[in-house]
């Protein structure tokens, strides 16, 4: 097992572009699930030059579906909410990834030690860290991959 980000990163990853719509992003999430063989909770966003622009997480998408006045809904038990979700999804589909992505993204260079990557994941509460070299994203280190490789060392 490697000890640097370069040795642990996955280089075949699905990336979004800032001008992709949420509808296209959802397709990309599905593609990433198939590619990785497991559920994906966030995708990196890169520009045409493959420079890191941001990250879109499932929470960003869920946030869009959450009603603006959800805090009032609790007070209004007589409001008929049937059909709200369809309407909310219809509105969200056309929004661009670049409008809601997080731009303050934790990143590491390829030579970063795995323990530094783990430290970052714990401190910043992130499940994936893009590996950036010369401003280009060259891979992603996933917390799940790290964990399952590391726990092998814990076996008797």
């Amino acid at each position: 097992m490697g000890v640097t980000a370069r040795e642990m990163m996955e280089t075949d990853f699905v990336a979004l572009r800032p001008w992709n719509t949420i509808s296209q992003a959802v397709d990309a999430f599905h593609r990433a699930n198939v590619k990785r063989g497991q559920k994906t909770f966030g995708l990196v966003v890169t520009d045409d030059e493959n420079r890191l622009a941001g990250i879109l997480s499932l929470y960003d998408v869920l946030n869009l579906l959450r009603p603006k006045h959800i805090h009032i809904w609790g007070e209004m038990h007589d409001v008929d909410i049937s059909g709200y979700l369809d309407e909310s999804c219809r509105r969200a589909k056309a929004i661009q990834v670049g409008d809601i992505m997080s731009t303050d993204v934790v990143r590491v260079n390829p030579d970063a030690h795995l323990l530094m990557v783990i430290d970052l994941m714990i401190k910043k509460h992130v499940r994936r860290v893009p590996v950036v070299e010369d401003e280009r994203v060259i891979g992603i280190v996933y917390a799940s991959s790290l964990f399952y490789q590391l726990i092998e060392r814990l076996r008797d």
Partner: protein
Amino acid sequence: MRRLVVRLQAHVSIADAIRQMIRFKVNAVLVTDEKNEAVGVVSKTNILGAYYAYLPLVTPLSEVLVAPVLFCSPNDSLDKALERMRAHNVHRLYVAEQEIRGSRLVAGLLGADPSRDSPSSLSRRAAGVLAYTDIAGLLYRYCHKCPRSTLRGTDPKSNQRLSDHLRVGEVMTASVLEHRESDLLGDVMESVFRERVRLALMRDEKGLPTGVISTSDLIIAYLHGLPHEIPAREIMSQPVRGCEQNQPLEEALQQMIFSDIQSIFVYKHSPGNITGILSLSEVARARSGSCKACLASRIQIEEPV
């Protein structure tokens, strides 16, 4: 109050503030220093001003923020908070953290009313935010349940609803900002900024309402780097959401909440005949202090014998 306060530091760019506003569906972000203390507020209107002035998207929030931040105490009555909002012509107050809990307790023991914080003694850290819309929700619940509501009629057991009394036309604002779809984006932006409104109604060449441009549409146009010289139709949202002016206020409120919008156009007889606009703030205002039953009970609570 809402616990979720969108906070950004003063060095963060306008572009990131726009993203946060869209992401969390808020009209303003609280700008804080390194100690998490409030230094200002940036609203969609402030961002619109930056767009109008051609400021680059990388401009830090410190360049566009408005100060001071207006706070209230978590112990303030809703009336007091509303009064403060009205006095300062703002739609939201931040609720101060109670870091002076000890001194408040002592003040209470000495006979002082711990709920009467002077704004200057409040913490500069926000524990939450209170907006007109939050108050609209609360009043909705109280008015609905209150058997003594003067709006319910003389029979306390009556199931007659508040909506049977208040109509949209009584509360709406009669003036509407209007533009042609072919007008330039910069012109629409200028009038939205100048008139301090959230929405402009767009009409086609025949004068029919065809779309809406909100402050959200405008800040997204800014984020996308759109020039001021494009036709406004390129960024307008559709459809035009409206309600009939004789419709019960409650139904309009439900419609706004359901459609995730803060204002709705009002028409007379047919949707093409727009006569005004109704906002959640106006609904909150209409519901506040209008009920004598609640006023009486508030006096009893606030002036103990």
